[in-house]
Each structure stands twice: as structure tokens, then as C-alpha cells.
């Protein structure tokens, strides 16, 4: 019997017995649905992190020099304890580092904190504060859409001026042009000189609730009361230049801190790659956990299919007898029932894929989690459906193929 015919026969059986088929397929469908949903979410997150998130933290050819790493955290408690003893990084360190680098680098110092801000137009609200210096706006790719950036003089004088994010502007200055107006933070008045383009959100956190001011302004009393800095970002024209610069910074800092060759660095230098590396580990764990659970569903689904196929063989004994009397060999009957089980299961898998994709889209629409469909997961899910069907169909199909035609024909 040709394969196509066997598949058609199986599909007809599903159509005729809709409710029974629904329950038969439920296990496989749910298994595949979760598989697809989980993989899509994990894939979506990783795509987001790789293409968007990391780029926003650290652009191309940019690395950070900080006291502590942003991404590549300690692997053990001992390491964590050692990190607690790492010296603070000061503005002088940053200057020293810049002096060791070629003239065409772009660099920026960044320290952050959070505090309540207020205006006469709106209720006070917490905002992110960034006290910065250097080529901060260029490195961060912040486009000024109103007013201007902070000038060199303002950085030097530590003027109390701010460039504000989109949400700060709309909240504190409803229907007003914020440029030239006053924003108070912990009672200190600052003049808004510019506004940056809307940045959107990241994992549900708004990237627009921020104000940026000069490092030497009164903001630093909040962001770095001890006088140290979180760290700095350095952007090089090319990737090669970036790796060279990283080495130079490392050597300069090791020299400055009098580290012996056997001693490890007591500061952190990171590129977006270290962030990616860290994230990939997380992603692998999520993928394994996310696929192991749906497998249980598939196993249960396989057992259900096996049972249903055994019932089908019992119900259709006479049909098997007729087919055998007309010349069907064992392998013809075996194939018919195997194809039927495989078709059932594959249909279940396909329904599961559709539901899984729908679930992923629903999750994406209602939570900050992004979703992206991984093409391989669709192939794997279909193959899994097919595989589960074949495995669970073998036993019933063998039973059918070994029926004695005379006995089978006698059955009512």
C-alpha cells in the first residue's frame, strides 16, 4: 500500500472520530506546544539580548573599565570575597588610562544612582541619575532631539545642568518644552538643557526615566558620595584597535597598582562579548530545562497513542482479515498501522506547534518577554511527533500484522 494512501486513510480516521482523536493527540500536542513556546521565548530573549540589549549597553568596538564587572560575575564565594577587596576606581585612574591610549579614542566616565526628582508641574518620582564626563552621548548613541548636549565648559565647571530622558520630560513637563526649565533633585535645582530621543524599554524596564548631568555637578553627591567612579567606557575605531587598547589599559592599570605578574587583575575590563558569553550559559540552562519538561508530555502522549492504536487494532480485526485475504502481507499491515500512528502523532505535533506559537505570541503581547520562533524548533517538533508516533505504533502494528486471517475474518 502506498504511503500517501496510508496517510490519507489515517487522516480520514481522525476526521471521523474527532473527539477521540482530540484526546489521543492531547499529550503530544501539549508536549510540543510547551516545547515550542519555551524555545520561542528563550530564542526571543537571546535574540533580543544579542542584537539589542547588549548593543544598548555597549556599542560596537567599545569596552568598559570598571571596578567590578557588569556581566562576568564571580564564580565562587572565594572569588566574590576577593572582589570585595578590589580597590575603588577614581577619576584619576580614568585620566591615567586615557593618557595611555591613542588620541583618537572616545571615552566617557559614568557613575549612576537613583533619587526622587520633582517640578512644580508634577508629583515627585524616582529617576535614574547618571553623572558623566567625556564623549558620553556619542558612545551611548543618544540623539538630542531638543536643546543641546552638555558642553565642555559645563563638564569642567560642574554646572548643574541636565539632559533628560523622554519619560522624565513627559512626566515632569506635561505639554511643555522642558528646555530651560528647572528640575529639582533632593532639593537642588538643575537646569534642563536638552532632551534625548525615546529609547523604549528593556525587559519591561523603561530606558527613558533618566537624567544625565556633568560628573562634577551636584549629582555626584548622590551618585558617587565617596568620590570614586563606577568606571569608564572606551570606544575605538576598529575591533583590532579595541583589543590593543584593552591590553594597554590592563598594563597601565596593573603598573599603576603595582601588581606582580602572578597576581590577578583587581579591576574589570569587559566587552559586549563577555556579556554574550555569560548570557549564552544562562540560555543553555533555560533551553535544557525548557525542553526536558515537555519531553514528559511527549512520553505520556506516546503511551496514549499506543493504547489507542491497540484499541484500533482490536476494533478493526475484521478489516485486517479482509485485507490479508486479499493479499496484504505482514509488512503491508504493519506499515498501515505504523503510518496511522505516525500520522496521528504528527498531526498532534502540528497542532502543538500552532498552539505553541500562539502561546509565545500571547506571552510576548502580555509580558515584557520577547518571543522569536527558532526554525529548528519547528523541524525538531515535527520530527519528535513523527518519532513518538512510530515508536508507540510499533507494538500495536506488529500485533495487527501477526493476526491470523481466518480468526480475523471470523470476528464480528
Amino acid at each position, binding site marked *: *500500500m*502506498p504511503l500517501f*494512501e496510508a496517510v490519507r486513510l489515517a487522516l*480520514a480516521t481522525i476526521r*471521523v472520530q474527532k473527539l477521540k482523536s482530540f484526546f489521543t493527540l492531547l499529550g503530544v500536542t501539549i508536549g510540543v506546544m510547551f516545547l515550542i513556546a519555551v524555545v520561542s521565548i528563550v530564542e526571543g530573549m537571546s535574540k533580543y539580548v544579542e542584537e539589542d540589549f547588549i548593543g544598548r549597553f555597549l556599542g560596537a568596538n567599545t569596552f568598559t573599565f570598571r571596578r567590578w564587572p557588569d556581566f562576568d560575575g564571580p564564580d565562587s564565594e572565594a572569588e566574590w570575597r576577593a572582589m570585595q577587596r578590589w580597590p575603588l576606581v577614581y577619576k584619576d585612574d580614568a585620566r591615567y588610562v586615557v593618557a595611555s591610549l591613542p588620541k583618537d579614542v572616545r571615552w566617557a566616565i559614568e557613575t549612576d544612582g537613583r533619587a526622587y526628582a520633582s517640578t512644580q508641574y508634577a508629583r515627585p518620582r524616582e529617576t535614574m541619575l547618571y553623572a558623566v564626563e567625556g564623549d558620553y552621548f556619542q558612545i551611548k548613541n543618544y540623539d538630542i532631539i531638543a536643546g543641546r548636549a552638555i558642553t565642555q565648559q559645563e563638564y569642567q565647571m560642574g554646572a548643574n545642568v541636565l539632559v533628560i530622558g523622554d519619560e522624565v520630560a513627559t512626566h515632569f513637563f506635561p505639554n511643555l518644552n522642558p528646555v530651560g526649565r528647572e528640575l529639582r533633585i533632593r532639593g537642588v535645582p538643575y537646569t534642563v538643557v536638552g532632551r534625548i530621543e525615546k529609547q523604549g524599554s528593556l525587559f519591561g524596564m523603561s530606558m527613558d526615566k533618566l537624567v544625565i548631568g556633568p560628573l562634577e555637578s551636584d549629582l555626584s553627591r548622590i551618585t558617587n558620595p565617596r568620590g570614586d567612579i563606577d568606571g569608564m567606557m572606551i570606544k575605538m575605531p576598529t575591533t583590532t584597535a579595541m583589543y590593543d587598547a584593552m591590553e594597554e589599559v590592563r598594563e597601565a592599570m596593573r603598573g599603576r597598582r603595582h601588581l606582580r605578574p602572578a597576581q590577578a587583575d583587581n579591576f574589570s575590563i569587559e566587552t559586549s562579548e563577555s556579556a554574550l558569553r555569560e548570557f549564552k550559559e544562562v540560555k543553555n540552562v533555560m533551553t535544557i530545562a525548557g525542553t526536558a519538561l515537555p519531553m514528559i508530555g511527549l512520553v505520556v502522549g506516546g503511551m496514549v497513542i499506543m493504547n489507542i492504536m491497540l484499541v484500533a487494532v482490536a476494533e478493526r480485526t*475484521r*478489516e485486517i*482479515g*479482509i*485485507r*490479508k*485475504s*486479499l*493479499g*496484504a*502481507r*505482514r*509488512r*503491508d499491515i504493519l506499515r498501515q498501522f505504523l503510518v496511522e500512528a505516525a500520522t496521528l502523532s504528527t498531526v498532534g505535533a502540528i497542532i502543538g506547534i500552532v498552539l505553541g506559537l500562539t502561546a509565545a505570541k500571547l506571552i510576548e503581547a502580555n509580558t515584557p518577554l520577547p518571543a522569536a520562533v527558532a526554525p529548528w524548533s519547528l523541524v525538531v517538533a515535527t520530527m519528535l511527533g513523527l518519532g513518538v508516533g512510530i515508536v508507540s505504533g510499533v507494538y500495536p502494528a506488529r500485533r495487527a500484522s501477526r493476526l491470523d*486471517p*481466518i480468526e480475523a*475474518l471470523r470476528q464480528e
Partner: protein
Amino acid sequence: MQTEAAEAPLHTTAERQVVVAQDGAPDTRWVIVTRGIKREYDMGGEVVRALRGVDLAIGRNEYVAIMGPSGSGKSTLMNILGCLDTPTAGEYWLNGTQVSRMTDDQLARIRNKEIGFVFQTFNLLPRATALHNVELPLVYAGISAETRKRMAKEALERVQLDGRMHHKPNELSGGQRQRVAIARALVNNPSILLADEPTGNLDSTTSEEIMRVFEGLAEQGQTVIMVTHEPDIASHARRVVVIRDGVIASDDRRETFVERHGL
């Protein structure tokens, strides 16, 4: 109603005795030769001997009825002749090939190529159309879909059912269903048409109609073997073999049989 074909010379009893007594393959005039066929069943320790040495020779183009009361072993004989079962002892030569020692799959091929079954209960697939039912043996013969369809249509035309080929069994009358089954049995051009109580589930008018179909086929040269327990149905055949207690009790021409039973 005696026709010319029915008066064609039958093989003589002497010839039959010779071919049965021989060793090895019979010549091509014989479709079926059995030599001392025995079939025993083990029913929970007790051995039931359904056939106790059946010698039977059936020539090409014969129209034979196998008759006997229930329990006589005629169903067992039919199963063996139809290659659904193999004998415990003895030889069965079908069309010059010994089939008594074949494996399941070899028997399946023989059933597919050499035998056309017509059952009392029609045994059509309920969810398939008449056409598809007739196509089934060709499916297992590995014939392409197009040829299959053409051959199935031709077979349905032979039983005057070409107007109903897209009907399912439950949309057909009993007589029509049996004619679909006959078309299915004929579609592979089998060596023998093996009918098991073909009229058992039909009323007398329809029975007559089906018997006329068999008669027509026999006239066209088809070898027909019909198993029945009804003497008046058996009397349609040109030769009647009566089985009793697992052995052949009598083997007569129709005329002798009719006379003896006073039909």
C-alpha cells in the same frame, strides 16, 4: 438451462485418480490438486481432526460446488484451498506450484495473484467506496493508481455495477454488495474464484441473480469453486463434491447429484 459451455467435456474420474496418485507437479490442465490433505487442530489438549485425507483434483474452467453439513470440514478445506491456512499433512498444488509448505507472506502473494474470495458476509471495507474496495487487491499487487482505477472499473462493469462505483457498501443493496465483492475477487484475474456461501445472506430472488453471475463467469471460462450447505445452490455447479466427517463422501456431475437428491 443447459448451455453449450456447460456441456464442454469434464475431466473424467479416471483422469482425476491418475493425477492425484502421481508424484510431483500436475500438468497445466489442473488448477487444484490435493493429495491426502489432513488438518488437525489442538483444542486445549484434544486433537480435532477437521480433514482426514482429502484427495481432490479440479481442472481449469471447472465450476465445482463443495457441499457438506456444518462441522464436516468444508470450511477448513475452503481455508486451505484459499491459502488462508496450510494443511498439517498432505500436498496442495495450486496452478502447478506446491503451496502447502509456504510461509505467511508467500501465501499472501498467492492469495493476491491466484485467488478471488467471495464471502457470505461480503466483507467489504465499510468506509471505502465500491471502486476502492475493488481496487484493494491491486493495491497489494503494487499496481499504479491509474491502472488500478481502470481495472477496477472494468471489473465493476463485468458485474453491471459501473453506475454505483462511488457508493459505499451501506448505500448498496445486499445483491449489489455481493456483486462488488465478486468484482473485487475478479479484478486480479485469479486462477480460481472461491465463494463461501455466497448467497447465505441474500433472499431467494437476489440469490438467483448472484448465481446467474457465477454461471456467466463459469461460461466465460473462469474456474469457480463454491462452498455451500444448500443442495439447491450446489446444484447450480456442474460438479458437486460432498464432504462428510473430513473426507470426500461423493464427487458427482450435476445431473447425478440432482437425481440423487431428487431436486
